[in-house]
């Protein structure tokens, strides 16, 4: 009896030691190099992620998780491509200026943000939780960032699956697109000399992969690494004459519509100007890019591809139980 008890005790002690060793292993933080090139110590499996910008929300929902805080683009506007889930998540301000106190209140153990808006205040964010900043501008940023963050969150296979699926979908849509037809397109912010994106931009890249031709072309000044677009004068627009125009829709001000040139563009005459939503502005997330792909295909070739139902597509990508 006594030997049984001591054996039991030894066994439990051993398993305890072993177990705590394993636990200690899990609790040891890992180091991740974010897009600033800085090595950041992050917890091994973050449970409470603050998403500063919709990319974080998008990614987490697609992984079957939920962030504990989010920001907004326009107050009160809950984007469809996230199924309005942002309504239930604490909102802490705009993506460029998240409120520090509210962020601290949310008690995150990881902060994911867009680099160009927030890196100036990195020191303060770092005090709350490990802070990772991502460029999220180029097409290549999408796969890479999704994989890195998902691996950190313990969902590496899901990320690989998402990336592979997107690659397949893109190839499938491109194959189905009519050959030899290269509709000229333009992706822009509204304005008198509209800010037009080069091919390196994610949405422009998707459109190009589908066979479209960006009237702005590639970044002409590659030494300017953050040169993603140009204020294209209306004269140039007239000359290049895009057939399809995509406008990021942010407000009542649509000054380009008041311009006489606008009405002589063939895109306007044929009614092929599309005001697109938040998923186009933050197109790098797994949900957003799939929706952008389908919308882009539909708007480029309306006879071949049907108009996607944003909510339905988003639902397909969000695993049923996410909490």
């Amino acid at each position, binding site marked *: 009896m006594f030997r049984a008890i001591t054996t039991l005790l030894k066994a439990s002690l051993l398993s305890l030691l072993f177990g705590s060793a394993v636990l200690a292993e899990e609790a040891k933080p890992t180091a991740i190099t974010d897009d600033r090139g800085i090595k950041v110590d992050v917890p091994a499996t973050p449970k409470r992620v603050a998403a500063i910008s919709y990319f974080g929300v998008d990614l987490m929902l697609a992984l079957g998780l939920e962030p504990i805080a989010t920001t907004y683009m326009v107050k009160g506007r809950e984007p469809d491509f996230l199924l309005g889930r942002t309504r239930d998540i604490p909102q802490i301000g705009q993506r460029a200026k998240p409120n520090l106190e509210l962020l601290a209140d949310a008690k995150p153990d990881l902060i994911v943000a867009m680099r160009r808006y927030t890196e100036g205040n990195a020191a303060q964010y770092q005090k709350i939780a490990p802070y990772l900043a991502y460029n999220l501008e180029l097409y290549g940023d999408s796969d890479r960032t999704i994989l890195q963050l998902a691996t950190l969150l313990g969902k590496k296979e899901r990320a690989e699956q998402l990336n592979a699926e997107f690659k397949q979908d893109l190839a499938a849509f491109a194959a189905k697109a009519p050959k030899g037809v290269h509709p000229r397109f333009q992706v822009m912010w509204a304005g008198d000399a509209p800010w037009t994106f080069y091919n390196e931009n994610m949405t422009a890249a998707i459109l190009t992969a589908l066979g479209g031709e960006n009237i702005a072309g590639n970044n002409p000044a590659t030494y300017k690494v953050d040169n993603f677009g140009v*204020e294209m004068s209306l004269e140039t627009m007239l000359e290049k004459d895009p057939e399809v125009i995509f406008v990021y829709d942010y407000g*009542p001000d649509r000054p380009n519509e008041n311009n*006489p040139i606008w009405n002589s563009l063939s895109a306007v005459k044929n009614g092929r100007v599309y005001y697109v939503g938040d998923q186009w502005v933050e197109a790098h997330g797994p949900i957003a890019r799939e929706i952008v792909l389908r919308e882009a295909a539909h708007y480029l070739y309306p006879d071949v591809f049907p108009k996607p139902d944003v909510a339905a597509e988003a639902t397909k990508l969000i695993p049923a139980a996410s909490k």
Partner: protein
Amino acid sequence: MRGIAARQAAGTAGGHLSAVALAGLFLLIAILVGFGGLLVGAKPMRLDTALNAIFAPAANIDSTIVWTLRLPRSIAAFLAGGGLGLSGYLLQSFSRNPLASPDLTGVTAGAVASIVGCFVFLPWLSSIYYAPIGLVGGLGAAATTFWIARGGRTSPLHLALGGVTVALFLGGLTTYMLLLGGPQSPAVLFWLSGGLQGRSWSHVVFMLPWIGASLIGALLGHRIVALLSLSDQAAAGMGLNLALWKPVLLVLATLPVAGITPVAGPIAFIGLAVPHIVRLLRPSGPATAIMLNVAAGGMLLVAADVLARSLAAPREIPVGIITALIGGPYFVYLTQRPNFGAGRER
């Protein structure tokens, strides 16, 4: 006193001619510069192409660019510059203050703030209403400035400082309203510094009545302008009802700004510098001064606009930057001269 006023109001025959010739010269320069501007832009054009496009317009791109973009843009620039010059002249005359101008009395800032307020908070309001709203805003700001400076009875520099205060306050308000409107940085910068990108015939037609009304009113009332630029007592002594005519002149001075601001945003320094330049040419009377101001202001802005289009092509620099860079140092130089505002300062 009466003789001087009479001479100023009537003008000698010789004075009239040379002033008209000068005005004509400015107009010619404006046309030449504007024409030169036709050749410049994102798509450089050759001289023969441009001439063809003007005199034998066809349905090709070059003609469209000339007739829909560059030509009306230069005309719009001329109108805007002329209107601002006129506004500055009127303000400086009736307040007898060499520093009065739409920017330094807060008129421009008032117009900008009220228009920005409209499209951020009342987006459903058609842009046709922007000019009258700008008028109300500009008048309100000017009234505040003049109230601060007790109708200009204090030192002229006090008026300028009061105006800058009002302008700064309204500028802060404008920036905040723009930031509230969401992530639209290009729009913000336009409303902060002005520009003529994409301005076409509809905009020209929009501005014309406002500037035209002010011009006609000023010309009709040029004798009143002459009297008021002497002194309040002299004008009252001649039987002028100050309580009526001063506000009228203020309204006349604000009309061009109300028409120009919705189209071109806030363009600085033209209203300040042009009347001074014209004064150097010694016009014989208000009527000729008015014509010269319009012509010179128009010419300056056309030139500034061509520069704005071509310096950083294909990017466009807001034209307000060019005018500030030219007008600003001139303004600094003005404040350094010993006889600053000679003959007018109290």
